[in-house]
Each structure stands twice: as structure tokens, then as C-alpha cells.
């Protein structure tokens, strides 16, 4: 037990949790926004990969880091437009379209990367975001290194989660998004254009996903490799359900998953005689349990995955 306690008491664990959680927070919020408007966006895995690649590439070619993040966000909006065209305008199956976007975006990012960056033994690197030194807070014992040594995008992710919670539950546009996800016909009858709402939500959501990807290459690591998203997009899709489509809970869910992940990483190094793959599995297994526990009471947006066609019931 003392091993567990030692891990919990190390500031490194808590710092790692926030770092691991950041891309998940962005991705989950993005997927959540799409789903609140009634569109499942399985393009997330590919959009994150592309965001990671293009953001890194921009910085590699001399742009500053925030420009890289912006470039990633813009690439996300383009994939959002693509997914909206297929699912909203054409009303195609959201699963199939989303998986298509993921396959396309993943392969396309590797293609672009290879076009620009020649094969090399060690991948080229950029200078990533550095931890922000917050006066007073960062120098506190334990608290400082545990919670206030993050890079700017991490704080941004947390702020966006809170803002999104406010938008969805406290503003007219949030109500319009929720109504569109629950009953687009009702939204239309009350003067809200469900098509526009869905486009807006999917485009903005996809941008957030791409920013989550860019965090990987511009803050967590400093180089790009094609498999680096590693299923984080799918975790985000599950986290949306875990969060019952609430941004605040999405933040909590991402942190919880990151906690499992950071914890098992440290456990691997101190516990001997157990194959490390067992530890690798634990966050996912615990996620399944948590999901089963939480998702039973979840209220799915009623029009999720249903194409809206004007004048049809």
C-alpha cells in the first residue's frame, strides 16, 4: 500500500494527469458539441491526427506555436464542413461518414507529412510549448509542481470546458443546439434552423478535436508520427457518454481517465513480476466499468444520428 501512497503523493503524478487529460478534454468537448446537435462525429480520430500533423508542420516551417494551433483548428473546421456535407446536407449515415473521415484524414496526414518531411532515423522536432510560470502559485510546495507547471493549452482546455457548459445550459444558442439534438422538427417549428445549427456545431466541434491533436505534437511531444493519437479519439467518444453530454462532467471524465493512465504508468515501474501490458489495460477496463455505471442513467439526445430532412417526420 505504501507504493500506492508514494505514487499519489508525488507531484509528478498530478502534473501528468493534467497533461494526459488535455487532448482528451479538447476531443471530448468537440465530440460532445457535435452530439448535442444530433451528429455523431466518428471522424474524431482522424481529425485529431491531422490536427497533430498540420499544427506541427506549421511550426516546423517557422510559424509560432499559437499559429500552429490555429492552423490545426482551421484544418478541423474543413473536416467539419466535410462531415456536415455528408451527414447534414446529404443525410448519410453518420457512422459510415465519420469512419470515412477518420480513414481519410489519418492517411492524408501521413501522406502530407511524407511529402514534406523526408524519411529520417530520428524524426525532426520543434520547440514545444513550455510550462507557464505562474507567480506565487507555481512556487508553492507540492501544489506548485503538481498543478501549476502546465503549458498554456492545458489551462485553455479547462477554460473552454467551463465556457461550453455555460453556453450549452445558459444561452439561447445553447438551447437551440440542444433542441436540435433532441427534436430538429420542433426546433424548426420555433424558428431555429436545424441545418445551420448542426453545421455550426460540427464545424466548431471538429476544430476543438484538431486542437486536441495539435496539443500532442506541440506540447506533450515535439514531433509527429502517424500513430500518435492511439485511439484517444475513441476514448473521447466514450467519455461523451460517460459525461451524459455535459461539459463539466466531460472535464471530470477526462481527468479520471488520465488519472488511471498516469497511475498505471507509475505502477509499472515499481511493481515487478507482472507483465506491463496488464497495467496498460487497466485504464481501459476501469473506463468500461465507469461507463457502465454512469451511462445507465444517461439521457441520449433523442435525434442523435438521425438525419434531418425538412418536411419529413
Amino acid at each position: 500500500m505504501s507504493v500506492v501512497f508514494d505514487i499519489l503523493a508525488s507531484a509528478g503524478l498530478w502534473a501528468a494527469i493534467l497533461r494526459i487529460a488535455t487532448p482528451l478534454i479538447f476531443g471530448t468537448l468537440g465530440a460532445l458539441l457535435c452530439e448535442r446537435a444530433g451528429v455523431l462525429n466518428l471522424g474524431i480520430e482522424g481529425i485529431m491526427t491531422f490536427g497533430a500533423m498540420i499544427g506541427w508542420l506549421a511550426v516546423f516551417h517557422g510559424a509560432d506555436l499559437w499559429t500552429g494551433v490555429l492552423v490545426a483548428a482551421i484544418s478541423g473546421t474543413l473536416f467539419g464542413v466535410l462531415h456536415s456535407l455528408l451527414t447534414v446536407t446529404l443525410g448519410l449515415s453518420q457512422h459510415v461518414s465519420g469512419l470515412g473521415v477518420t480513414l481519410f484524414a489519418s492517411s492524408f496526414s501521413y501522406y502530407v507529412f511524407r511529402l514534406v518531411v523526408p524519411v529520417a532515423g530520428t524524426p525532426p522536432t520543434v520547440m514545444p510549448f513550455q510550462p507557464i510560470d505562474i507567480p506565487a502559485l507555481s512556487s508553492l510546495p507540492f501544489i506548485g509542481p503538481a498543478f501549476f507547471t502546465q503549458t498554456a493549452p492545458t489551462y485553455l482546455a479547462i477554460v473552454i470546458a467551463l465556457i461550453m457548459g455555460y453556453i450549452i445550459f445558459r444561452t439561447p444558442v445553447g438551447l437551440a443546439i440542444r433542441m436540435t439534438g433532441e427534436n430538429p422538427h420542433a426546433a424548426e417549428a420555433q424558428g431555429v434552423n436545424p441545418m445551420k445549427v448542426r453545421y455550426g456545431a460540427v464545424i466548431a466541434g471538429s476544430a476543438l478535436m484538431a486542437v486536441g491533436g495539435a496539443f500532442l505534437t506541440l506540447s506533450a511531444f515535439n514531433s509527429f508520427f502517424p500513430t500518435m493519437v492511439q485511439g484517444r479519439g475513441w476514448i473521447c467518444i466514450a467519455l461523451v457518454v460517460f459525461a451524459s453530454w455535459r461539459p463539466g462532467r466531460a472535464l471530470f471524465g477526462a481527468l479520471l481517465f488520465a488519472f488511471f493512465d498516469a497511475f498505471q504508468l507509475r505502477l509499472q515501474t515499481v511493481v515487478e513480476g507482472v507483465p506491463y501490458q496488464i497495467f496498460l489495460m487497466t485504464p481501459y477496463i476501469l473506463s468500461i466499468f465507469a461507463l457502465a455505471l454512469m451511462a445507465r442513467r444517461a439521457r441520449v439526445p433523442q435525434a442523435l444520428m438521425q438525419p434531418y430532412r425538412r418536411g419529413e417526420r
Partner: protein
Amino acid sequence: MTTPVLDIIGVSKRFGDNLANDGISMSLGKGEIVALLGENGAGKTTLMSILFGHYVPDDGQIRIDGEELPPGKPRAAIGAGVGMVHQHFSLASNLTVLENVMTGTEQLWKLRSATEEARKKLVGIAERFGLKVDPDARLGDLSVGEQQRVEILKALYNDARILILDEPTAVLTNIEAERMFATLKDMARQGLSLIFISHKLDEVMAAAHRIVVLRGGKVVAERKASETNKAELAELMVGRRVTRPVREPSTPGAVVLELRDLGVRIGGVERLKNVGFVLREGEVLGIIGVSGNGQAPLARVLSGTLARTSGELLLYGEAVGNLSVGDVVDAGIGRIPEDRNGEGAIGEMSIWENAVLERLPAYSRNGLVDRKAGMAFAKSIIDAFDVRGGTPASGTRLLSGGNMQKLILGRNLSHRPRILIAAQPARGLDEGAVAAVHARILEARKAGTAVLLISEDLDEVISLADRIQAIVGGRLSPPVNAEEADARLLGLMMSGDWSHIAEAAHAP
């Protein structure tokens, strides 16, 4: 009631070859309730959709307070004070009442919703018109009647002065419907003007000041409620004299179905208690009651989709165990389920597939479905039962409610069932279709079929049944003979007061 708030002038609308509205003119006065009466397909809903801006008319115009309304603009209609209450509610079940009402009423990019002001306004309107509802309740937790109230509140919240209700009672129980019409009358007294669409003669006579009858897209008549009667309206609506078929006297034969002390418990709740009845060849036994009193479990037990927990079921004089659907079909029990879209037919499949589905073995050869025989059977149903609007190969979903019901009847009656379980067979059908369905049921009775008619329509039960039992809270009352039953007695029976029928039951 003299100033017209709404004028519809010469409105026409064509869909392809179908002239849905043909030069329709009508007006609505302040504080007036006008019923728009017509059969399904008469053009009522099209007209109201034009009024509300969902459709652009080919010709004609709409004036509100003398000013022309721009065509095809729902926002303009809402702005001019027109509110529409759809037959299928436009509500989101996961949102609260207040959220449902507020959607779209504010500027989209405002930084904060004015929830408190909205709540005050909503509660104020609800109190003024007696439409009590909790603004913070989740919509999905409300009853259908309450949800309709929310739908009406939504229109009033947008400052509607003219309210259009599309078949408002289609989804309500009788009691809820009565309550709703009382509210509508109160609203009219307070100066609102209302149009409601209906094909039910009773409610039109009871609630409207004036009745506009539509047939084939044209206004065929306009009557004051005080100067007309149901028979005249029925004739105007259908275009010919409709006489509901009359039950001829008959001599019932042997007992074919008997229940003794039957009980059903679902999830710990007793749905049926000590239910007992006998059903004889060549008679119709009516089970009357407000829906939700155990009709559904009763029909399901007899259809083989629900197991009883206690009691005996005797089929043709022999005690049987729990029936499966296959047993039921083999025993010659025909069924008309209450929910024809959900249980009666599969909309996505063709008519012939629906016709043969419950008798697949009879329509297969060498392990393959005998399509030819199935098509022939479907064709025979279509011809014999006058199913309009489809061929054997066309989709079932395209049929109107009445024609789908005729298909279901035909599928059952073509096999000359010995017993027919008919649950709410005429619900939601228009006058012509009701008469057709009733005639078929009486024909079956004449041919010796024992019919169990489960219904909440007093007129239907009185005109079809030989004997009547009421179902209240999962219990069946003793039977009364139809000759002794009137609306008053049946009303008492449905409310659970069975003291008046003791003598009747023992009468010879």
C-alpha cells in the same frame, strides 16, 4: 364575434395531380371556435399548413386583421399571432417544459437566456388559461394530455391570438379530451380565436360555434353548431348518407372462449384481477373502459404475447396453458391489435408480405416463400375488403390508417376465424372507414365468429355488442345486455359503479 380576425380568401394548392385545396374561403371571428370538419385527405391539414406558412399556396391569400400575410413564412405567421398545435407534438422529451417553450424566442447570440422572466411569463399564461403545468418538469415525464398543454402554452407564449389545433383529441383519452375542450372554450371567452381540425362529429358538435365542412379540397358547407346535427354533418362530410351498420338479432351458439379468475401481474403490479367472461359463437362481447385499465394486457394474453399469472383459460371448452402466438393462430383466433402501426403491420414491408407473415408455413414451398400465392392472397384481400391506395407489392406504410385496418381485418377474416379479438378497431379512422370496419365485424358475427370487442367508444360498443362488460382497474364488471345499456349506465360501469347491473346480469 363579428369582427373577423382571420380571412382565408380563395386559397388553392395543388400537389402533382392532386388538388388538395380548391378555392377555399373561410373566416374566423374574435372569440370564436370554428371546427374544420372533414375526412382524412379532405385538405384540412394542407389548408392549415398554408395558413401557418409551411406551404405556399398556388392562389389566394390569408388576411389577419385585414392585412395580408406573406405566404410561406412561419415566422411571419407567428409574428402575426398565429399559433399551431400539431397533431404529433413538436416537443423534446429530454428538455424541461420551460426550455421547450423558450426555444427560438430569444435572440440567438444573446449572452444569457432570460430564464426567470420567461418562467414568470409562462406561469402567468398557464394560470390565466388554466393550463397548469410545472415549468421545470422534464417533458418526457408528463402525460400525453400535459404534453399537449405544453404545446398550447408554446403557442400562447409567442402571443398567439389565433390558435390552430390539428386533431387535438387524436392522442387523448376521453376525459383528457373533455378537459381540453373546456379549456378551449375558456380561451375563446377570453378573446382568443380558435380553429380545430377534426373528423369526430361528437366533439365538433360539443365544442365549436361554427363548423366548416371540407370535402375533396372544397368547402362544401358551413353551419352553426346550433343549427345542425350529427347526421347532417356526417352526410356533408362523406358526401353521401353514411349509415353505420345495424346489428341484427342472432342466436349465440356454443361457448368458445372462457376466462375464469384470470390474473396478470407485470413487474409486481397486478394488471388484471379475477377476470372472467364467456364468449359464444356468433356474438359480440364488448369490453368497455377508459384506456389504461387493463385492456392491453387482456388483449395480449388472448393473443399469446403475455403469460397469465393465475386463473383458467378455456378454449372450445378445454382448459389450456399459456398460449403462444403460433397456438393462437392455429386455434383460429384472429386479432386486430390496438396499435396497428406497431403490432398490426410492418410499414417497411410490402402488403403481400404483411398479409402472409403470420401464416408463413402455409405460404412456403420447398423452404422458400411462395411469393405468387402470397401476392394472390393479398390481391384477394385488397379486392374483397376494398383496400385502397396500394397493390400487393407496394409498401404498407403508404396506406392510410383506414386502409391499413382493412388490410389487417382482411388478413384475419379471410381465414374465417372462430374467434376475433378486436382492440379499438375503429380508433382514429374517419367516418367512412369506421362504417366499413363495423360492417365487417358484424359480417363475421353473422358467419358465427365469436367477437371480443375491446373499445373505449360508447357508440361503437352499443351499436356492435350483444353483451357489454366494463373494465376498471384490471377487473371486469358483470355483463349487461346491449338492450339494457345506455350511455348513462355504461358511464357508471366505466367509473367502477356496478351496483346497478346486478339485476341485469341475472335477467333471463
